């Protein structure tokens, strides 16, 4: 992890004129707390965590969290959740998923849970339907794909194109057994946010934004991007992430309805 990000840090340090260090956190909660304490100046955090952190700093006298860029992957800066089923399952519409068994990644996964769960609710599946009530979390996207392939679950929530990514080796010829039943609304990729108002000035934040945007302009930085598995960065804005709040609210209904021990994540 350190090795993969060192080139980026060196690049930023040289561009800003101040040394950047990498700090890793065990979970989003720890990172949010560090932001509030003014311990970090730049945070690369998931959409949900960003919203949590933004809420936490809303009334902070000094610090303010401002998204400056978001990554671009596979040509996209937005992503959606896909719900996959076996072709031979006989399921052709979202409505048919009622009463079925579905595999999710974990409660914090955007594409692997939030977007799909919200999509189900928005598609008319009651929040207390067994498919939502007995949510099965299998930890990884790959497990979701495989468990649907092996017919252990009727459906699964994955990111776009996950089937092609995970069906390889022994299962590479079995892609045809699966199909994408539906796709959720898109949300932007996770932002890189600057903590302004403290040690970092607005000018410095703007400078950092320029530095990120410049990475995809110049091929000499290809290695930096390759290491962090990103095609480039584009400008991100706080309002882009607002729709996610609604999604969270929908999903939280499920959680409120039926507490699930699997949902309690650090």
């Amino acid at each position, binding site marked *: 992890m350190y090795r993969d990000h060192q080139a980026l840090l060196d690049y930023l340090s040289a561009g800003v004129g101040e040394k950047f260090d990498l700090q890793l956190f065990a979970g989003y909660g720890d990172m949010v707390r560090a932001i509030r304490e003014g311990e970090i100046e730049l945070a690369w955090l998931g959409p949900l965590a960003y919203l949590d952190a933004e809420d936490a700093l809303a009334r902070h006298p000094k610090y303010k969290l401002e998204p400056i860029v978001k990554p671009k992957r596979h040509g996209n800066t937005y992503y959606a959740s896909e719900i996959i089923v076996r072709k031979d399952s006989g399921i052709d519409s979202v409505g048919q998923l009622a009463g079925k068994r579905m595999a999710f990644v974990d409660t914090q996964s955007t594409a692997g849970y939030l977007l799909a769960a919200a999509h189900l609710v928005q598609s008319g599946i009651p929040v207390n339907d067994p498919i939502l009530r007995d949510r099965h979390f299998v*930890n990884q996207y*790959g*497990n979701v794909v495989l468990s649907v392939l*092996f017919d*252990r679950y009727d459906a699964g929530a994955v990111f776009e194109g996950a089937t092609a990514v995970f069906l390889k080796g022994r299962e590479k010829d079995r892609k045809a057994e699966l199909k994408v039943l539906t796709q959720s609304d898109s949300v932007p990729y996770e932002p890189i946010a600057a903590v302004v108002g403290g040690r970092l000035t607005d000018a410095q934040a703007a400078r950092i934004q320029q530095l990120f945007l410049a990475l995809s302009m110049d091929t000499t930085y290809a290695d930096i991007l390759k290491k962090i598995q990103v095609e480039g960065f584009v400008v991100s804005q706080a309002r882009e992430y607002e729709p996610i709040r609604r999604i969270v609210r929908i999903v939280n209904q499920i959680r409120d309805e039926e507490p699930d021990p699997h949902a309690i994540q650090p």
Partner: protein
Amino acid sequence: MPSSPDVLRRIQGLSIRWKIFLSMMAVAIAVTVGVQQFALREQETIIKDDVKGTGQFIAATLADHIAELLAQSQYLEIREILAGMQQRDRRIVLIAIKDLSTPKKEVVAAIGDADMIAATSDVYDDRIVSYAGTDHYIFFKPIQIRGVAKLLGTVHIGLSLDFMRERLKQTRDSMVAIMLLAVALAAALALVVSNTLLRPLERLSNGILKIAGGQFSHQIDVKSGDEIGTMARMFNRMTENLRILQEVSRILTEQAGPQEVLGAVLERLAKNISGSTGAVVFRGLDGEELVAGNADESSLFFLRKLKQAGYSETGEHPRPLMEPARLCFPFFSEGEITGGVWMVRAPNNPIDEVDERLLSGVSIQLESTLSKLEFQYRSVTDAMTGLYNHRYFQQELVRQMERSQRLSGVFTLVMADVDHFKKINDTYGHQQGDVVLRAVAGAIRKSMRGKVDVPCRYGGEEFGMILPDTTIEGAKIFADRLRVAVEELTFDFNGEAVKCTISIGLATFPDAASDKRLLIEVADRALYTAKESGRNRVKTYKDIS
């Protein structure tokens, strides 16, 4: 293909060197092959047991470890575990995890060949399965969460036994190397053994051939202290004995009388025995002892007792006296003990069988030679005086006449008669008369020239002497010397000093007579003339009137 008697015959026909070599080879190969087979079988058992233990442990541990993950469909995590396991143990060629909660009981995580996984999926115990020409140990274990009866899935693990074949091959290669080494060592050993064994045997056999060719002086050079060395030393002593006996045999043909024979033989014998040796011959009617070499009282005592015991009764050859340091073989001839030969050693150097054989051989030769000599001696000797008898006198006279005629030489016949012998007999008895005759005979022997002159008892109190190559003048000198010698004899008959004289007549061949009967007659007439002219005189044929 030769039959087994053929093989046996061929083996028997091989040299000892080949026999030793082949038997050592056979032993080396048999032992190493035996050990190899045993080691390989043991190693295979150990490896299989080890693989079995390992496989069962891996299967059980894996089943336990992934139960929760399988329950939660965390296939990728399981796959990572499997990949990690295969990296850690290269013997693992197959792992297949079946999820029994999927409708088709899908293999959800696997390592290894798909066909092999399919081929072994119906194995529900631990067993060795042959697949694509290779043996694999397949282990089966059901997956369930501890304390929960429900079966979640199954584990199949396949461990390749290829590495075992590889190790067995390594072992076999090592064993073959050891075997070659053992065979080489056995060959070297066979060479050493056959050399140490066969060189002395070859020397021995060469020696035997030389000795067989008559080279009794050949000594076999074998220094080893083993049985062959002992054999060679015995053989050397034996040839030495043969040499001695050969020399003794030669000596016996060269020597004239018993005294000379004994002397020469004992002298030769003494050279080769570390000890003393001696012999005795009992001669004549009164058993005169002729001792030669070192006298040994024990042996002499033994022989005398034997002689007295009179072995003539049994007719068997008497047994020798055998003591650790003394050996005495008696001579036996015509039912009589005629003497014996002995050897005496220091007590710390006892007599052995080879010594015994040597002395026995010498004894047999001496016995027969002495017996022959004694017979000759008796046939030509007058028993009472020890001089030649009348018959020998007649034969010798003929021989001398022939010799003198052939060489145009001369010899003189001496006839002597004891004066007034009848009166001695009548006055002192026949026994005293015999004493006188023996004394005169002694005087004759002393006066004569060793082996040249021939002294005989002609009959009664008359003696005849042949002096070869002697003229009448020479004979007169001899006769006078003899006459004086007899005249000087004094006998003590019952305290009385008695004297005697002889009268002597001489006749020279061929001057006096060229005929035997006539020559004796002429000599007798000369003797008669001496008697007539007053006795104690010497007269020649020329003095006959």
